[in-house]
């Protein structure tokens, strides 16, 4: 730590996301104002011109995501940021980015919904929208930071994953993290690993834009370089040409889902504490996990053998990990600020192997360690 360069700063989550994005190489931002994500856009408007990047305020969120995808096709790392209502509007074009395999980062600062809901207060209710919001099949990658530092770190990771897997990646922040100010270490650019998309290694006449090797991720040509690629949201063959051939469609969908599903272990990350002797495990993620960890520590002080698992990668869901940790515990408590979304995934992974409890808090106020401790004691009684 002492050898490392970088600088210490005191930032809110929204600004940390901007720091992370710029460090990751983001040079294009398109957005539309929405609470509680607007600071990301404001900060981008000020910062990007200074480094020769492009900021554009679009006419709506449909346009924002479309412009970001368009920019990415020119070889630029591009991003947009929004909150629930805007995230809903982006879904159709997120589907296009999945289908055409375009790297793009979407920050969704979660607030209470449905509809206008609680614009200034937090929720964790867009977990399923992040995965299933677009129509049709397809996989997605979604990361959930729990601190301002992680807002920065995971935004860098989001860009790297987007480039590596040629896919949209969603950062699921929330209204608490957005405006929470914490000490952050902004790393020096030299310390960071940056992943760039694979480029074609053959001349245009030999290049098949949607033919992948065993990685299942095809190299990506840049617009204007003579490759003359046709991108379409229609089912397409390896040349990129539309076709409704059933076999071809099956092959395409299987590949774009497998390129992520087959790499769950590589993509997924989590934070685990006090698991070894645990009789009950608390599963949480995002800003909620902060109070959960404190409650876990307090419970252990009182002699309860409680473990802590925080999901950092929400999608793809780490089913194997959940199965594994449930082998030695009889009880699992899922905590989230919604009416039960990750809960469903945990249930599916665990089946009858452990008893699953759920504690939620709606209304935008954060969990307190005290109320969680009460739940733990009630369950263990």
């Amino acid at each position, binding site marked *: 730590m002492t050898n490392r360069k970088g600088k210490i700063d005191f930032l809110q989550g929204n600004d940390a996301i901007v720091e992370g994005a710029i460090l990751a190489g983001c040079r*294009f931002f*398109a957005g539309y104002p929405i609470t509680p994500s607007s600071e990301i856009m404001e900060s981008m408007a*000020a910062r990007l*011109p*200074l480094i*020769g990047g*492009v900021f*554009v305020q*679009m*006419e*709506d969120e*449909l*346009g924002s995501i*479309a*412009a*970001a*995808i*368009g*920019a*990415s*096709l*020119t*070889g*630029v790392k*591009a991003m947009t940021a929004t909150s629930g209502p805007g995230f809903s509007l982006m879904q*159709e*074009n997120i589907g*296009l980015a999945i289908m*055409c395999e375009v790297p793009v980062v979407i920050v969704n600062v979660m607030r209470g919904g449905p509809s206008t809901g609680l614009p200034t207060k937090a929720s964790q209710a867009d977990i399923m929208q992040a995965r299933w919001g677009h129509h049709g099949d397809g996989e997605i990658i979604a990361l959930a930071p729990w601190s301002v530092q992680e807002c920065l770190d995971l935004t860098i990771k989001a860009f790297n994953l987007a480039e590596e897997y040629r896919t949209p990646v969603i950062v699921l922040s929330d209204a608490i993290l957005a405006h929470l100010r914490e000490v952050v270490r902004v790393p020096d650019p030299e310390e960071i690993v940056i992943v760039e998309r694979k480029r074609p290694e053959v001349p245009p006449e030999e290049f098949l834009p949607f033919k992948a090797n065993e990685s299942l991720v095809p190299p990506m040509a840049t*617009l*204007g*370089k*003579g*490759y*003359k*690629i*046709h*991108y*379409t*949201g*229609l089912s397409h063959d390896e040349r990129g*040409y*539309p076709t409704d051939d059933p076999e071809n469609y099956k092959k395409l969908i299987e590949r774009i889902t497998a390129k992520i599903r087959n790499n769950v272990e590589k993509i997924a990350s989590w934070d685990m504490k006090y698991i070894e002797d645990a009789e009950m495990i608390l599963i949480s993620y995002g800003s909620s996990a902060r109070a959960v960890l404190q409650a876990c520590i307090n419970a252990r002080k009182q002699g309860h053998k409680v473990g802590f698992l925080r999901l950092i990668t929400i999608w793809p869901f780490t089913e194997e990990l959940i199965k594994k940790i449930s082998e030695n515990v009889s009880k699992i408590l899922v905590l989230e600020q919604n009416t039960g979304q990750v809960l469903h995934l945990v249930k599916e992974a665990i089946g009858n192997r452990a008893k699953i409890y759920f504690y939620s808090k709606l209304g935008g106020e954060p969990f307190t360690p005290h109320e969680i401790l009460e739940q733990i004691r009630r369950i263990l009684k």
Partner: protein
Amino acid sequence: MKVSPIRKYLREERLPTIFCPGCGLGIIMNATLTAIDQLKIDINKIVMVSGIGCSGRIPGYIKVDSLHTTHGRAIAYATGIKLANPELNVIVFTGDGDTGAIGIGHFIHAARRNIDIKVICVNNLNYALTGGQFSPTTPKGAWTYTSPYGNIEGFFDLCELAVAAGASYVARWTVREVYNLINSMKKALKKKGFCFIEVVSPCPTNFGRRNKMETSQKIINFFKEREIKVKDAKGLSREELRGKLIIGEFVDRELPEFTETYNELILVSQKKFKEPEKPGLAWIELEIRY
């Protein structure tokens, strides 16, 4: 045998097209490629973007970098492409549904920014690929599957919208005026700014058949009977223009272009910046005009 100069631009392995016999899309594709060929624009630096509908299929037949995007969003995708790489010539093909209905926001906002994108809007007077429903440009009284008692809605004049929003160049032709269309396209391709060319085009399969104009020729005659030049339409009252199809150049003007102004903004942000003496930034006048 003489080979057409535009043949080299086609993805021949994809032919024949899905276009119906008598459709105007082939003429429009031909006119676009002829303009590109005559201007000798580097095809490697052209990106064609389209939305959804019959017109959305055009870029897929041309050997060029191209995007066939979502319904109505082509201009928004094009905005991202042009801003991220202003060296590219970005041509958008849209239809009357894309431009006049689901994507009208992107259309007028791109015109407001005056971003250097060339939009070719194929107005075939109905939603054709979905089987023939009325669109925002369907003539009043026309029969479509969703106006089975005659269309009672008013229509958008897309060219007037583009002019009002601030486009650099706006023209309307029917597929009848191929040479005018090619010339307009050449003007647009050379111009720096948002250019909008509406091409009124026959759809015999859906619009025509249901309105007693079952051949392309009959629809083109219908256009011909109603055409009036922009200059002849000037000064005529709304009543006098009822049922007329105004063709020609609506506007051809020099206005600041968005990517160029954005590059100035980059320089300003990087401290080639004078303290403003009046409200607003010194390099851009504070302007209000309604």
